[in-house]
């Protein structure tokens, strides 16, 4: 078995630009990922950073095959999934999970929290749903009683934790977390970060963590990938990259961090 969870080579992805579509004929395409290559070893925690619109979420969605690349290859646990049809992807989907940036729109408003977490479990043929849901809620620090609530009855942060509970309930090999702590209060954020550290350590989970918060990335991630306009401009050991950033945009990101200190010169 491969010790690489992901092997990605020359990954390209483009979208039709509907805003420039002529009345007749196909829309021109905009290339959002411009030939990315990197590996993620099992058990690693990789940070993906970069300015807004640099392609982080698109990369994440391609890795989970929610989008189909236009070029290049994605190997997941040694298997080429670049162009696999949905029927072949289905059994793999339990193994790679995504936790989304936008908690409200990824939770079905008509289902209770318990049903939301149980849904994918049932789909993937798990038994003992009640207990698994309870354990997942417990992992993310939500009281058992939340199982009967609806998404609109929760605060933003509580919803985000439901999304995390739904993903970890499936005991996946890989989780892609897209900006999942930026909407959390600092206390839940500390809980979730400590929780992710524990899950990585104890379950051997592999994690890719997209975040704007470099303080969080520096703490959580062993390695970091810096994206800029759909290209990797810098990658390496997190400590080293932050100690001596090579790319201008990495330096800009670091300089713009608002430290919790009213005396920091920042303007």
């Amino acid at each position, binding site marked *: 078995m491969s010790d690489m969870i992901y092997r990605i080579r020359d990954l390209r992805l483009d979208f039709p630009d509907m805003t420039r579509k002529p009345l007749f004929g196909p829309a021109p395409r905009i290339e959002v990922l411009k030939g990315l290559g990197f590996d993620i070893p099992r058990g690693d925690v990789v940070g993906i950073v970069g300015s*807004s619109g640099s392609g982080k979420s698109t990369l994440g969605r391609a890795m989970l095959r929610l989008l189909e690349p236009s070029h290049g290859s994605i190997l997941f646990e040694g298997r080429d999934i670049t162009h696999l049809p949905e029927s072949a992807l289905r059994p793999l989907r339990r193994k790679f999970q995504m936790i989304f940036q936008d908690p409200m729109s990824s939770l079905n408003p008509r289902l209770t929290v318990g049903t939301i977490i149980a849904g994918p479990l049932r789909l993937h043929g798990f038994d003992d749903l009640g207990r698994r849901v309870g354990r997942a809620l417990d992992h993310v620090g939500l009281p058992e009683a939340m199982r009967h609530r609806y998404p609109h009855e929760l605060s*933003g942060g509580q919803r985000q934790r439901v999304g995390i509970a739904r993903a970890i309930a499936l005991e996946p090999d890989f989780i892609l977390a897209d900006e999942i702590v*930026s909407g959390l209060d600092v206390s839940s954020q500390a809980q979730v970060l400590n929780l992710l550290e524990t899950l990585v350590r104890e379950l051997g989970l592999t994690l890719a963590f997209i975040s704007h918060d470099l303080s969080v990335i520096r703490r959580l991630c062993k390695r970091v990938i810096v994206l800029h306009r759909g290209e990797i401009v810098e990658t390496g050991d997190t400590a080293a990259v932050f100690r001596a950033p090579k790319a201008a945009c990495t330096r800009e990101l670091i300089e713009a961090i608002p430290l919790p200190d009213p005396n920091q010169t920042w303007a």
Partner: protein
Amino acid sequence: MSAFLTIEGLNVSLSGVLPILRSVDLAVHAGEVRGLVGESGAGKSMIGKAILGTLPRALRIESGRILLDGEDLQRMRPRDRRRLIGAKAALIPQDPLTALNPARRIGPQITDRLVDILGWRRRAALSRALELLDEVRITDPERVMRAYPHELSGGMRQRILIASAFAAEPRLIVADEPTTALDVTVQKQILRLIRDMQARHGTALLFVTHDLGVVSKICQTLTVLYGGLVLEDTTIEEFFAAPGHPYSAALLGATPKYTDPHGSLTPVPQSVIDAANAQLDAFDRARRQ
């Protein structure tokens, strides 16, 4: 000088049984940026919704006053209230995807406000919208005006909501975690921009956030909320130098620090939560008597 927004003794409950806001007092003066922090579920967004008159149906204002520019909102006729709020206040909502209509292009979603509330002509509204998108550092405003929300990144959607909040030049803006989806460089530009526009127009700004780094950069005053109860009302200097409540100190302890990546990260300790809960109980007992 009296504040542009004054909230006095605001009690909000879930169907008359569960307290959501507990006798909240809060004021924001013209030109002031007040931070509102507190953990998830504390009631920060509900304060914003109470001000804008958009509380969920299940929530009810039990007592208290909300004064906007000296006018008591609860005592106005609903129609007049809506008009007053529409003209003087705007919200930058917490959830950047659900706040935009997925089936409509961005352009009209921004210009609607100008046309409907301020009675602008469509063409003027359109060029104002382009100008605003440019101000929030959207690189290709023409494309974005024609795009649907799902064609844009999270940070772009958030900037669009910031632009449309400023469009009608409101005198109060409630910004509900407006920069969570932005990278730090854009966040810095946007915070500067918000501060500039706010200072130029003397806008009163209520800034809901979890990020104490952001608080230290943009706010002058701060309200710390727990379980719908105000634990502390303070200035930024005091908050960071000597937090006045153990809960505030715990929030600082739970904040990841870039300069100390391996220091311990402690969620708010149970003892602090127990003490704050005891404060809530004491409040509820006193109120029942």
